[in-house]
């Protein structure tokens, strides 16, 4: 009789401990999202012509934004296998690298001088050019569509970063991070409980004006992405 009582006590104690440890370590539950307020027709976005590259994935089957900012000039897709195979120096091991959880990247090129590359070798840069923001890389909008639901990258926070939550037009709640001074990378992350998404662009202060897309356009673009 005493053994049964002790076992019962251990079981109850174990459940209490599990709950306590779970809270302490922040074991996440999958976030729930409201259902989309209405259906949005998912239209395939044609990849930019890449005659030497054959797509190894069916990007047209992925949910993609139905609206993009007017400055978008071209679209290209990078499949999971391409991403994994594109790790320089890892080509020999590429076949052993798992792709089952690797996302698909959809890249939206942007028009305008502020979004083109103007970098120079360090020795060729002038102080005036540095201070005016003349030297900058190209800027694009990148959408990473992850094949798994639930988790959102929460790794961007701290000094100089503003974190907020925004309800998108597609009904889902997104985590938005951006530079507190209005510059930096805008990141909009959400999940539709089938896949996860990360939409990014970088706003830089250049001598041709700000690069990238503004926050309102990025939120609208994210919200135009239909659920899986």
């Amino acid at each position: 009789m005493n053994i049964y009582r002790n076992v019962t006590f251990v079981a109850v104690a174990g459940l209490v401990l599990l709950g306590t440890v779970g809270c302490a370590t922040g074991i996440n539950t999958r976030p729930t999202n409201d259902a989309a307020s209405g259906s949005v027709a998912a239209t395939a976005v044609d990849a930019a012509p890449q005659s030497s590259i054959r797509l190894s994935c069916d990007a047209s089957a992925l949910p993609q934004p139905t609206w993009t900012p007017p400055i978008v000039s071209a679209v290209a897709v990078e499949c999971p296998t391409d991403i994994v195979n594109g790790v320089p120096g890892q080509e020999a091991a590429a076949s052993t690298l798992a792709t089952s959880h690797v996302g698909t990247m959809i890249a939206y090129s942007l028009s305008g001088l502020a979004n083109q590359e103007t970098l120079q070798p360090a020795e060729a840069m002038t102080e005036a050019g540095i201070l005016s923001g003349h030297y900058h890389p190209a800027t694009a909008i990148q959408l990473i569509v992850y094949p798994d639901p639930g988790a959102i990258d929460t790794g961007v926070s701290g000094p100089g970063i503003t974190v907020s939550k925004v309800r998108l037009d597609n009904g889902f709640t997104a985590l938005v991070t951006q530079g507190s001074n209005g510059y930096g990378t805008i990141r909009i992350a959400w999940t539709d409980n089938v896949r996860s998404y990360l939409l990014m662009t970088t706003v830089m202060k250049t001598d041709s004006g700000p690069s990238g897309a503004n926050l309102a356009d990025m939120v609208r673009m994210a919200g135009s992405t239909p659920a899986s």
Partner: protein
Amino acid sequence: MQKRSGHIFLVALFTLAMVMMTPAVANAQQPNDSWSTNGKVGYCGQTSGGYVVAAQNYLWTSDAYLYVDNAWGSNSNAKMRAFQSRFGLTVDGCVGPATWNTIRSTVYSVCSPGYACSLPNFRVALLNGSGQIARQSWYSRTNCDWGSYIQSGINASPISAGSTYGFSSSLVGVVSCV
């Protein structure tokens, strides 16, 4: 008999407690995702070591910096100042918390967040006008450390291509998780 059952009970309770605590210990080793606690890099701080490698690895993509060589000098300083200027940061060439966070915000996981993938698993990529990758840098995030994966073609001695250097004040590999 009663004494023996009491001993069994205590052993079982102790074992169960250890099993339950293991996840807490493992999770406590997770690296700081914000990078703001990285050591300062530049003339204000470190001019060699893992943090310098991390910054140079990033500058290769963001600013076409040549080459990742574990030596912070005038070229590294100039490139970092150009980076800081266009992001509205203090233009002093010093990679401190705000600059590290600005850098970190451009780095993304190629793998679904919360899932394990082969390393390296984080990337920053710059695209050309056709939306194709012009340059990219890779980082590895394990359960307990960050590291810079140095791809071939961007390194100079003593940095080795194909190696991963941990986020550290010294030049070490990625810390192995316990």
